[in-house]
């Protein structure tokens, strides 16, 4: 279900009209900042306690640790004077993980041993490998949808929960099909595909009785993605040339050996993250500047992002400066800085009647989405 354009601001204003632009301008000016009030100390304490207990329990405690950190971080975000609340539990994360682990184990067993049962020749080996890869990709896409559903239903503001309409399977079929199309076009359509995934997911989202609507532009993201790809391509060529043609001419064998190792590493650390900073910033812009929540009784909420590529670059650069010398132990500081940076660059405004914003009616899933939790290395 997609809200029509006129619903983006209020029922009487049509999208793109002069009146709409005027409202948009006023909205930007009136929008209130989102505050992140968290402090480094409590976050670091949670992080190191979780790290120690996760090691002791062979990773099992991770699910509870993640929940504690989410509960803390959520509660420190203040939107329109009201704090967010995280409602999830560690048990739900663990159960979700176990459920998905069982699925993945079945896929791995079919992939490893399947050909032995039918015919261990080329056709079946390739067929089963392709089939299980496709099933895994499909599962991953469905997981994107259900992970968002889990997080939304576990996020409350003023006692009102988020939710999602529809099922993960049609989403996985649609985005899976589009991925194959964009992959056939040598990946040129990847930024378009990613934005489509986001659009489908966000448009299925609700907050209480308000429905989310996202109609992002795609051209800026396409060009920033191409810029990133170009930078990576040029860097790869240069590093390849240096390692294969220049380094072997260095007389000092030890230095040559060290350079062969260091050059690609430096390129990987310095160039790759920075190459896609403009792309990241443009995606954030397209999402938040085109995102609205609307309910005919409650009104609407809109967001505005002021994130810049330079800001993202600076965050990444400082993150590297913190993470590399501390061997990753400085992660709480990076996370704290990133959360503040994200909040500082986001504003929210609109016209909302809280008395008319009703509780979500969609059912809450009983467990988390385990696949993304398992693959997601982030602490959030």
């Amino acid at each position, binding site marked *: 279900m997609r809200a029509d354009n006129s619903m983006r601001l209020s029922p009487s204003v049509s999208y793109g009209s002069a009146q709409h632009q005027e409202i948009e301008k006023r909205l930007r000016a009136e929008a209130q900042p989102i505050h992140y*009030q968290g*402090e480094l100390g*409590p976050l670091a304490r949670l992080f190191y306690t979780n790290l120690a*207990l996760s090691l*002791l*329990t*062979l*990773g*099992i*405690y991770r699910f*509870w640790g993640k929940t*504690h950190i989410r*509960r803390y971080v959520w*509660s*420190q975000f203040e939107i329109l004077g*009201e*704090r967010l*609340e995280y*409602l999830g539990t*560690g048990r739900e994360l663990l159960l979700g993980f176990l459920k998905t682990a069982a699925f993945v184990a079945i896929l791995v067993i079919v992939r*490893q*041993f399947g*050909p*032995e049962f039918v015919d261990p020749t080329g056709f079946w080996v390739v067929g089963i490998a392709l089939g299980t890869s496709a099933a895994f990709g499909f599962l991953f896409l469905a997981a994107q949808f259900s992970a968002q559903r889990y997080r939304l239903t576990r996020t*409350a*503001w*003023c*006692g*009102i*929960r988020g939710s999602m309409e529809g099922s993960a399977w049609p989403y996985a079929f649609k985005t899976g099909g589009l991925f194959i199309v964009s992959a056939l076009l040598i990946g040129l359509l990847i930024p378009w595909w990613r934005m489509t995934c986001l659009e489908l997911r966000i448009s299925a989202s609700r907050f*209480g009785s308000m429905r989310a609507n996202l109609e992002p532009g795609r051209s800026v993201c396409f060009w920033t993605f191409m810029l990133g790809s170009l930078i990576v391509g040029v860097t790869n060529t240069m590093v390849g040339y240096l390692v294969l043609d220049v380094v072997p001419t260095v007389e000092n064998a030890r230095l040559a050996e060290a350079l062969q190792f260091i050059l690609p590493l430096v390129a990987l650390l310095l160039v790759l993250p920075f190459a896609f900073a403009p792309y990241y910033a443009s995606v954030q812009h397209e999402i938040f500047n085109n995102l609205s929540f609307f309910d005919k009784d*409650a009104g609407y909420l809109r967001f505005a992002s002021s994130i810049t590529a330079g800001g993202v670059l600076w965050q990444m650069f400082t993150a590297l400066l913190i993470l590399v010398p501390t061997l990753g132990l400085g992660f709480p500081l990076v996370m704290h800085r990133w959360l503040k940076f994200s909040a500082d660059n986001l504003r929210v405004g609109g016209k*909302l009647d*809280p*008395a*008319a*914003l*009703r*509780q979500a009616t969609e059912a809450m899933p009983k467990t988390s989405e385990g696949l993304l939790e398992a693959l997601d290395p982030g602490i959030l």
Partner: protein
Amino acid sequence: MTDDRYYDGQTATAHRVTVTPLGNTLLIASTGDPALARWPIEDMRVIDANKVTGALNFGRVSDPAPRLVLHESPQRQQLLDANPHLKEWRSRAAKHGWSVGLAWTVAGLAIATLFYFGWRDGSAYLARFVPKPWEQKLGAHIYKAITKNLTICEGNGGKAALRQLVDRLAPPELQKDAGKKQEGITVDVVDMKLPNAFALPGDHIMVTSGLIDIATSPDMVSGVVAHEIGHLDLRHPTQSAISNLGISATASIILGGSGVGDVATLLTILSYSRKMEHEADIRGLDLLKQAGLRADGMAAFFKVMKEKFEKDGHSLIPDWLASHPGLDERADYTKADTSGTTAMTDSEWQALKDVCKVR
């Protein structure tokens, strides 16, 4: 009106409220509604505290949606003082956190211990479910790795004598049976000085010419062959592959993946535990007795090996004989009387002795 707020969980309205504890109930009042809500205090819980404002966030156990945010006030203090389960929320939360942490730490350590100590028994259990064709594939890789630089002895008389011995000793489930699609045990002699014998996955036995040379009677060879058939019957090769290499590496070798060319990796499969060697000895003795053959050759062979060990040192003795269980101990518990027939006729024994001389 204070900054205290109440959210009913039905709409997003932030009601500005005052609260009054009335016995077991907390009365929540707003300007428009003096009895907006009544919360049974027993049903209340503290969710968290706002670090900036110091406000406490209350919820209900029976209903996850409503919230009550109370700032520092005499009413809040009265509520907390009268109800330890609310006042001690921090220590309760910490206690809960530590008990969850401790429970999972114990669970984690228990799982690790179970894996560490239970892996061999677990692999014995798993080995039973590995289909024979997979074992044969695994065995074929090891066979290829071992025989790469060795010669297989082709003396027909010797091969036939050994074949006949294996057929006499093998239990029904290891006999060749076309009806049951059983391939039976295959056996080879390799030209190698080191006295040794191996049981490979996929029901294959290898005996070195060095072992035949050192044996002073066919009953010693039958003892060793019975011991190796014991390994096969108990599915030790597959069990050893799983416990030494892990499931995924074993599967990858079966499927021709990485590790196939690595002889050292493949040979770790053939290093059996002390318990497995003991089991194979006992099973071997049973097989000898069931076949009506003399069972004293096994103990005699261990004695010969011990003498060789004392004479030549450790390097010329294969691991499975030199290490565990001790040769003395093994000679002791495999001791048997001289009843039963001898394993081969003189001419068969001679042919086996010459098996590597015929090219």
